[in-house]
Structures are given as structure tokens and as C-alpha cells.
């Protein structure tokens, strides 16, 4: 589903990713781990198409298409979803109205008809319940005044609502206590499907206790330096990044 070959990405004058390779098939859950500043968030932004992240070399292929050529909203409509580490607060736009606009935009882009307000509300309520997102939260302005946990839950709610093909979760565990983490992980796990690929980006092994990946990649200095099964996370936990970074990639 996703094929990244020799990806080089610069932000301003600075090269952050320096020849990254990654391949994810439908139905798989991959995790990217790495120390701070290794380029994890850059990878997630490049996949979602944020301006200012320039691909200087390499190729990202998504279901056979050159992903870099697509605008962010086109990627979303084609099933790319990024759960952001810091979801943006937008005063003046209510959460419910945002969800409806986004959902219908994606549907329209795929040639589907709009859902009316009642249908959207029904859909959202059903998903909201399992993620413990209150009715009151949906009425408030998008992410404004939300706690860290609330913001992350709303991101997962959107993932459930939009049913993406490729979901990228950027440090979804950051700032969450253990109960909130479990809730979010459960939400993610119910979305695991044979048609869906997931890329979980995290600094800590903790999240991977709850979202067990098929494969783990270690990102450092802009490259994948180690790869393995889920046991790699435990090794990292026990020995730290230093240990892995010293070994030849």
C-alpha cells in the first residue's frame, strides 16, 4: 500500500530525512520508534503533505500513485489519515460542524453524495460513545480548551469516522495517562482491518504494549537503522536507543 524509497526531506536549509526506505502492506501495523529529533514527525508531515517539508530526493508511492503530487485534501479523500501529535485549536469552528464538513468533503471527492446533518450526527454519536467523547465536546470549538486526552480521543474519533486506508498515528501516546492510553489504543485496535494499514510513530515502547505491531523500524539521524518484530521494542526498552544506534544498521 505504501512504498517509500530513498526519501530525502529538507525543512528550510536543513536535511531531516536522509534516504529513508519503508514498505507497508494492507492489513499490517508498523511502528516507527526513534529518539527525539530523529525525523519521526517530519515523516508524518511529509505523508500528510504539509507545506515547507520539501522532498529533495526519493519517492513515496501510495496504492501505485505518487503521493507527493497530491494536495493534502486529496490524500485525505484517498484514505490517508494523520492523527497529529498536536491537534490544532481552531476557535470559531465547532467540532461537530468541522466533522460534517470534513466527512462530506471526502465523500464528495470520492464521488459520493453528502450526508445530511442528522445522518452525520448519528454516525458521530455512535463512534463518540465508544471513545468517551461527550456531546458537550462536540459542541465546543475544535480542540479549543480540550485536555490532552480529549484532543487525542477526538483524533481517533475522526479516524473511526473517516475510515482511512492508511492511518499514521504521530506520538498518539504523548501526554496521556495510562487510562487514557488504554482507551485510545482500544479505539485504534478496533480499527485494525485487513484492508487498512497503520503506521504508529512513538518514542516509547509503552504504546506498543497495547497496539501490538507486526513490524518495528528504528529511525535515527533520518534513516531506518534497525528493523525487527515486536520483540525489538522490548529490547529497546531494556537497553535504550544508545545500544541500537551503536550497532551497524
Amino acid at each position, binding site marked *: 500500500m505504501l512504498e517509500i524509497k530513498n526519501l530525502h526531506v529538507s525543512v528550510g536549509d536543513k536535511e531531516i530525512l536522509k534516504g529513508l526506505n519503508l514498505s507497508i502492506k494492507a492489513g499490517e501495523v508498523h511502528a516507527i520508534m526513534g529518539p527525539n529529533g530523529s525525523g519521526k514527525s517530519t515523516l508524518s508531515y511529509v505523508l*500528510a*503533505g*504539509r*507545506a515547507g517539508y520539501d522532498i529533495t530526493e526519493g519517492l513515496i508511492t501510495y496504492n501505485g500513485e505518487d503521493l507527493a503530487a497530491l*494536495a*493534502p*485534501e486529496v*490524500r*485525505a*479523500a484517498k484514505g490517508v489519515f*494523520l492523527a*497529529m501529535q498536536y*491537534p*490544532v485549536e*481552531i*476557535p*470559531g*469552528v465547532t467540532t461537530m460542524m*468541522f466533522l460534517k*464538513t*470534513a*466527512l462530506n*468533503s*471526502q465523500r464528495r*471527492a470520492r464521488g459520493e453524495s453528502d450526508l445530511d446533518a442528522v445522518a452525520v450526527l448519528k454516525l458521530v454519536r455512535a463512534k463518540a460513545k465508544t471513545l468517551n467523547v461527550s456531546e458537550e465536546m462536540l459542541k465546543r*470549538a475544535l480542540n479549543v480548551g480540550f485536555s490532552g486526552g480529549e484532543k487525542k480521543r477526538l483524533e481517533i474519533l*475522526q479516524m473511526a469516522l*473517516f475510515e482511512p486506508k492508511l492511518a499514521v498515528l504521530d506520538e498518539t501516546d504523548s501526554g496521556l495517562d495510562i487510562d487514557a492510553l488504554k482507551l485510545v489504543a482500544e479505539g485504534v485496535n478496533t480499527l485494525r482491518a485487513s484492508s487498512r494499514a497503520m503506521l504508529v510513530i512513538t518514542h516509547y515502547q509503552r504504546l506498543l504494549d497495547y497496539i501490538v505491531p507486526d513490524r518495528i523500524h528504528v529511525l535515527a539521524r533520518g534513516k531506518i537503522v534497525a528493523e525487527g518484530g515486536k520483540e525489538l521494542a522490548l529490547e529497546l526498552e531494556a537497553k535504550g536507543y544508545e545500544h541500537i544506534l551503536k550497532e551497524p544498521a
Partner: protein
Amino acid sequence: MTLVLPSTIEARKAEAATIFGSHGVPTRRVEEWKYSDLKVALGEAGIGTDQALWQVDTLPDGVEMFDLSRNGAPDWVQKHFATAGRNIMGTASLTLSDGGVALRIAKGAKISRPLKLTFQGNGHVRGLLVLEDGASLTLVESVGIADFRNVGFEIVLGEGASLEHVRISQQSADAVLVEEASLCIAAGARYCAHFVGFGSKLSRMELEIALEGEGAQAHLSGVSVLDGKRHSDVTTHVIHRHGNTASTQLFKHVAGGNARAVYQGKVTVAKGADGSDSHQSAKALLLSENAEADLKPELEIFADDVKCAHGAAVGDLDAESLFYLRARGIPEAEARGLLLQAFLEDAVAEIVNIDQRELVRTELLTALKRVA
């Protein structure tokens, strides 16, 4: 700073004529008109002596009306007409207008149906609205298109009175529209005003608001959405003459094309007006290379026990918010529209009357499509 006013309307008009005579039509060299050169906008036509018109849609029960062009003004008109405000164009309309409308809401009357007032046609015209003690009203003011019109509006709020004033000014390429409203707000009275402007060749809404008694309040908000060569100027002066008074101002402007958005807001706290509380915020978004925003939030403080603050900002749409919306599948143009609406929303949300608020939202949507 209390003006000693002549006792008759004629004498007050004569005084205004003297003041206007010494100033003439303002140019940008007059500090208060720095961003709106009226003389240039009018060109050779000048301000003329035409009499502009007014119209009131079905008078709600409990509202008394008097045509100012007629003789025999009742006592309440004699008492209040031409008593407030001596800014330049206000004195021009006092000098050059023979007519206009005076409206009175009797003591304690709560008028539930909005009063709709329209000023139209070319030339000068006066308005007077008196809410006696404890009265309340929603005033919906429409602005008719004209080559040039100068409205001088006086509003008097008695103790504990409450007025919501919604003014919508439609866009027009060639109109030069000027209005000065002067308000006296007594103790415990509350004035809420909302100005929605889509700009014209030169469009100026000027307010002078005196908070005269304990607990008097003025809450102003406004939005303007401008494109083409539209110009929109909101100039306010809120004077806290008495202690424990409060004022807030929240103005949002969006300018595209070659448009120019102007906000000048001055807050004065008079000596001894302790406990005054004032907050001012003015923000503008520029959408094109040739648009301009000029903001001048001003504080003039002569008392120490006050809380006064203002903020102003000019910029473009937040890139991060735009990306977030697009990453969730909302196309760029739509996402921009959504963010523009959101930018204006807190100023629109201040409108208490639900029908008016929805009407404004609809009008803004149309205008934003034109601009974005």
C-alpha cells in the same frame, strides 16, 4: 469636560454651524480622518446641501415618532436634539439638514419587535432616538446606497435602558457614506452595537459614546468583508466619564482586492472615573497583495484605578490550521472560507437578536465567497 449647551435647538444648530465653518470638509490631514480622505472621495461634488431621506417600517407599539422637518417639536425632542457630539461631520449635518426622524421609547417600555430604520438618498439627515429610563429596544438600521449621504444620529439612553443596535451596510463601488452616532448612556444603561460593513468608495461609521453614570456599559462589535476598491472605516470614541463603567470592543476585518479596512478606536477614562474597565480588540486579515489594513487602538487614561487593555493584530490565515483542515479532506478554498468565518465568528456571536445574527452570518458567507 461638560459642554454648556444653548437652550434652544436653533442656538445649538448655530453653534454647530460655527464649528463646521471653522473646519470644513475633512481631509487626511485631519488626524481623525487620516485614513479616510473625505474631500478627495467627494471630489468636486462636495458635500452639497441635499436632504437625505429616512424610513421606518411599521412602528412597533410603544414607539413614538416625530418628523424633524415639521414644526412644533415636542419637549423630549427640544430637550435632546443636537445636545451630543460635536465632531466635524456631525456639525455638518446639524448645519445642513432640515429634517430627519426622532423616536422615543417611553419609560419602562420593553419593545420586543425590532424597530427597522433606513436612511436613504443623497444629502444630509438627522436621527434622534431616546430610550427613557428602563426602556429596551432592538434597532435594526439599514444603509441605503447613495452617491453621498451624511447621517447624524443621536442616541440617548436613560437610566437602566437597554438598546441593541444592528447596522448593516451593503457594498457599493461608488457610494460615499458617512454616519456619526453620538450617544449618552446613563447609569445602569447598556448599549450593544454591531456594525457589519461590506464597504463602498468611502464608508465611515463614527461613534462617540459617553458613559455618564455608574454601571453604564457599551459593547461594540463589528465585522467588515471587503473586496475590489472598497473602503470601510469604523472610528469609535468611548468616554468613561463616570467610575465603574465598562466598555468592550471587538472588530474583525477581512480585506481582499485593493480594499482598505480602517479601525480607529479611542477609549478615554476621565479623571476620577475609577473602576472603569475597558477592553478593545481589533484584528484584520489581508487576503491580497494590494489590500491594506490600518488599525489605531488608542487609550487616553486620566484615572489610576482602571483596567484598560487593547490588542491589535494584522496577518493572514494561520498556516497550521489550514493544513489541519486540508489533511482531513477539506479542499483549500473551502478550508480558507471556513477559517475566515471562524475568524469573524466571535464578533458575530455578540449579536443577541437571533434573527439578526443569522442574517448577518448569511450575508457574510456571500461576501466571503466574493473575497476569498
